[in-house]
């Protein structure tokens, strides 16, 4: 019990630090919000959502997740840069706390930021696209966090992976997107299924189960391998 | 099939068949070529 409590307190310390730093400047959240909003506007201009409600419902799931994906990538890239200033990362390596606690703290903080963006974005989305959900909208409260965690956990990991790489900002989407594709498929299909009401609850349930399995598997892998990546040379 | 019909470009099927086999050969031999030319460019180890 004690090791678990110790580990949790490390994670919470890291989380607290990241949240506090972010709260002081609010860079990441503002950037993400604006970016996601712009993506939604571009799509809104590309076709007329109010004139074609059926089509709109069918593609909004995809548009929402594309907007969130690109917004998260912009935030994830710079979530590690604050560790590079003042050689904080070296200090982290030398600290006795397990490296995976640092990773989890950062992943959870990134998750919270993206959830805040989603909470703001979802009503905007509904208004801009004139969406009337035909399915059970409360399922979205389950799908959105699960999908977001899939993107954030792998994204935080790959952002750390590319810390000393050339073209670091370019590397993150190149690595993140292929690995996340099964999760993206599941979250987009589930969201679209809820919005259009075309999928019955069993099918949506299967997508949600796949998403959960993906989350569990990749969270485990990320936690296990973070130490290796942090001490890569 | 005969050599004649293999290389005939008259139908879409025969063109695509030829193209598919050509693509395989080009990619495989091209890759082998790349390895060989990079082998030549690497200095031999001293021992």
């Amino acid at each position, binding site marked *: 019990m004690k090791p678990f409590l110790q580990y949790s307190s490390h994670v919470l310390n890291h989380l607290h630090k990241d949240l506090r730093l972010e709260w002081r400047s609010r860079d990441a959240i503002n950037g993400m919000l604006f970016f996601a909003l712009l993506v939604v506007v571009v799509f809104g201009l590309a076709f007329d959502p109010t004139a074609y409600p059926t089509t709109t419902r069918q593609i909004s799931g995809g548009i929402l997740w594309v907007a969130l994906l690109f917004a998260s990538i912009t935030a994830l890239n710079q979530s590690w840069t604050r560790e590079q200033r003042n050689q904080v990362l070296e200090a982290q390596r030398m600290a006795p706390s397990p490296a995976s606690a640092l990773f989890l703290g950062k992943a959870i903080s990134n998750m919270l930021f993206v959830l805040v963006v989603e909470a703001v974005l979802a009503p905007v989305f509904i208004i801009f696209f004139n969406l009337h959900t035909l399915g059970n909208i409360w399922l979205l409260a389950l799908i959105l966090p699960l999908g977001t965690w899939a993107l954030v956990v792998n994204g935080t990991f790959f952002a750390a*992976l590319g810390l000393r790489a050339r073209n670091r900002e370019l590397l993150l989407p190149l690595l993140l997107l292929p690995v996340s594709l099964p999760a993206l498929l599941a979250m987009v299909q589930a969201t679209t299924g809820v919005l259009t009401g075309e999928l019955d609850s069993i099918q949506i349930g299967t997508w949600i189960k796949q998403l959960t399995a993906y989350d569990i598997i990749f969270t485990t892998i990320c936690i296990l391998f973070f130490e290796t990546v942090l001490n890569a040379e | 099939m005969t050599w004649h019909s293999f290389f005939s470009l008259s139908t879409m099927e025969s063109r695509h068949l030829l193209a*598919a*086999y050509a693509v*395989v050969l080009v990619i495989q031999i091209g890759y082998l070529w790349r390895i060989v030319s990079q082998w030549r460019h690497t200095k031999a180890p001293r021992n």
Partner: protein
Amino acid sequence: MEQRTPTLRSVAWLWFAIAVAVLVIGFRQAIFLAPTDAAQGDIFRVFYYHVPIAMLSLLFPYVNFIASLVYLFWRSRDPLKALTADAMALASAEVTIIYTTICLVTGSIWGRAAWGIWWAWDERITSVFLLWLLYVSYLMLRRFSSTGQTQTLAAVLSVFAAVDVPIVYMSIRWWRTQHPAPVFFGGPDSGMAPAMLPAFFWNLAGWAIWGIFILIFRFALERRRQLAEQDAALQAIEASLEIPR
């Protein structure tokens, strides 16, 4: 090392010759001896290249995965062994991409002629495409990461890719099915006409032998490069030690 090299070279040339010979026989079997397919006509002969290469393209990722795990294991224990494992990981990643590319391109060419479409987002095609994407991202990571870290980061990514591949397959399987039903291990009405089996097996053997040949050749090239790098580093150190006092 001096005694081994000529023997190794002879074996390599022999293996290459066998590969070419089997492929020539396979070509003859596929084009001239195999019967014309009743439904699709001669375009079906793409099958004899497409399917063996597709099957083999699913093998090399595992070589990469195992080599990456071996690298991570030896990394802190025996760096020289780890380096060898890393060379194999890189070689098998490249060969995976070669075979997967061929699979996708020939499939597309065949699909256009036989079924009128260049592409479809069905379970098999999409899974293979994602496999291709994963290994291209692996090579990009190797290219972009800073030296010293490259091998470790690539090995970790390889673990992600290896875990992702079955997940990709299962998720897409549940989503789409347009590909022709599996020829082998499929339901009823699968399996090939016996007259087509020789062409299939000759080509499977031929491309497997060829695949092993280019895998080992690429591995040897990578080892050669690693040794050349080590030599250069050693020379630099020796040169710095010779500075006259």
